[in-house]
């Protein structure tokens, strides 16, 4: 890993929810993830940024146990995902725009199904809580397939918070939302994370959003972490005006930003 850690001091002091060490994933001759190491602390929102194909979703899939790494380790609250998959995943949940819940089940049916799979206790009360939290009560008995994309995103987030996870993985959670809905959803996620002390790994291409919600960001390019730090100070540390400028620089000229690069 060749990462700068200018803003990571505060996070390092908090208990780690997710610890990734020297993670590596290869598809044939393509190196998708190349020796990535980082952690997410409790009550911390970490942004995983990078251009398309940088390896963000691959990392999330490996953490979720639906993709096997070629090397490295992943621990969720001390549980190794390879050896203690069930314990690790009971503490984890996710929402992604590319993983909508089955459209042929109602909102309630989906939440009950996934609630049972995650072993949620007091499931009826918890479903009522998340329906209220995400303003989905009116859609309780509506099939997910007929909801708008924004409503489906809210259902996906309700599922993601159903088991009150300690680690929440969000892959572009506001990608399909209008600005007003996106702002509301961001506020709800941040409120949930703060209230429950959740560690959140958040990917997004919306740099304004990232700057607002993330305590720390990791810039990923070609499967490697190039930069790490506070999203509010990191651009200036690298001579850029905004986080978006820095993102574009990472995407177009990653070698110029590698601190210990070749």
């Amino acid at each position, binding site marked *: 890993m060749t990462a700068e850690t200018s803003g990571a001091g505060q996070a390092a002091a908090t208990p780690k929810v997710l610890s990734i060490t020297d993670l590596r994933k290869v*598809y*044939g001759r393509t190196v998708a993830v190349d020796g990535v190491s980082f952690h997410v602390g409790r009550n911390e929102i970490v942004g995983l940024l990078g251009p398309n194909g940088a390896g963000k*979703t*691959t990392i999330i*899939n490996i953490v*979720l*146990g*639906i*993709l*096997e790494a070629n090397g490295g380790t992943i621990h969720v609250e001390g549980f190794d995902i390879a050896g203690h*998959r*069930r*314990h690790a*995943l*009971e503490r984890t949940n*996710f929402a*992604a725009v*590319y*993983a909508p*819940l*089955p*459209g*042929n*089940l*109602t909102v309630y*049916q989906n939440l*009950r*199904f*996934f609630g*049972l*799979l*995650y*072993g949620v206790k007091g499931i009826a009360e918890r479903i009522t809580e998340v329906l209220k939290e995400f303003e989905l009560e009116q859609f309780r008995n509506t099939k997910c397939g007929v909801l708008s994309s924004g409503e489906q995103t809210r259902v996906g987030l309700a*599922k993601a918070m159903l088991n009150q996870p300690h680690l929440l993985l969000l892959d572009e959670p506001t990608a399909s939302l209008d600005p007003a809905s996106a702002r509301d959803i961001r506020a709800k996620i941040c409120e949930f994370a703060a209230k429950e002390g959740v560690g959140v790994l958040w990917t997004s291409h919306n740099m304004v959003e990232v700057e607002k919600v993330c305590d720390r960001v990791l810039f990923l390019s070609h499967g490697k972490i190039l930069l790490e730090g506070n999203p509010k100070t990191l651009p200036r540390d690298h001579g850029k005006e905004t986080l978006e400028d820095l993102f574009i620089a990472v995407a177009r000229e990653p070698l110029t930003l590698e601190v210990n690069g070749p």
Partner: protein
Amino acid sequence: MIHLRRIAAILLRQFYLMRGSPARLLPVFVWAAIDIVLWGFITKYLNAITSAGPNFVPVLLGAVLFWDFFTRVMYGVTTTFLEDVWSRNFLNLFATPLSISEYLGGLVLSSVATSAIGLFVMLVLATAAFGLSFFGYGLMLIPYLLVLFLFGISLGILANALVLRYGPAAEWFVWPIPALLSPFAAVFYPVSALPHWMQYVSHLLPPAYVFESMRTILAGLPARPALLLWAGSLALLYILLTAWFFTRIHRYAIRTGLIARYSAETAS
């Protein structure tokens, strides 16, 4: 450690889907009922033209009922799995703490429920409309159903593994499997009627022992429980082998990224 709540979740999901969908509920018994009606009239006709000959009702109609039961069991396992294929749910499903043994347990439990409905409808129809009496099979009825159930489960798991490996389009593997096996299973004729090479295959198929035993009993000869015990053991072995195979395929799908990109049908 297996959690019953997770197994129950798979069953509950299937209940939700069937409750709201006649397209799912009707196939559980309609095709089997049509088979019973068709073969019921055929056996009645055969009995009429061969009045001094054997009673075709328990031989042919009974065989159809048993074979349809086996088919329903297999389809019960596969359709529950295919629901996850059709709704592109693998990512959400396999990112939960659900284990493969719990998932397969849920598929089997769903199949128990749907095949029991199908069996009940077939029994009522065959008994009420065509006079099929199950007293003729005696207590052997229980091992017959058990062997066919176990073999149906094993074939269902095998079909699911093939679909998981080769993608959604491989669904066509599933439906013809019972038809492909039926000539070897000697549903309507003795195994001895088959050419030698087919008989070798028959001896590997647990249903062949059921249908042979059924004909033996109806001919008034003593049953051979040891053969059915062998058939049951064979079916159990197939369940273990196919569950192992499914687990291997799932592991392959996790290793290569196929689960995450299932609609692409290939990991590369």
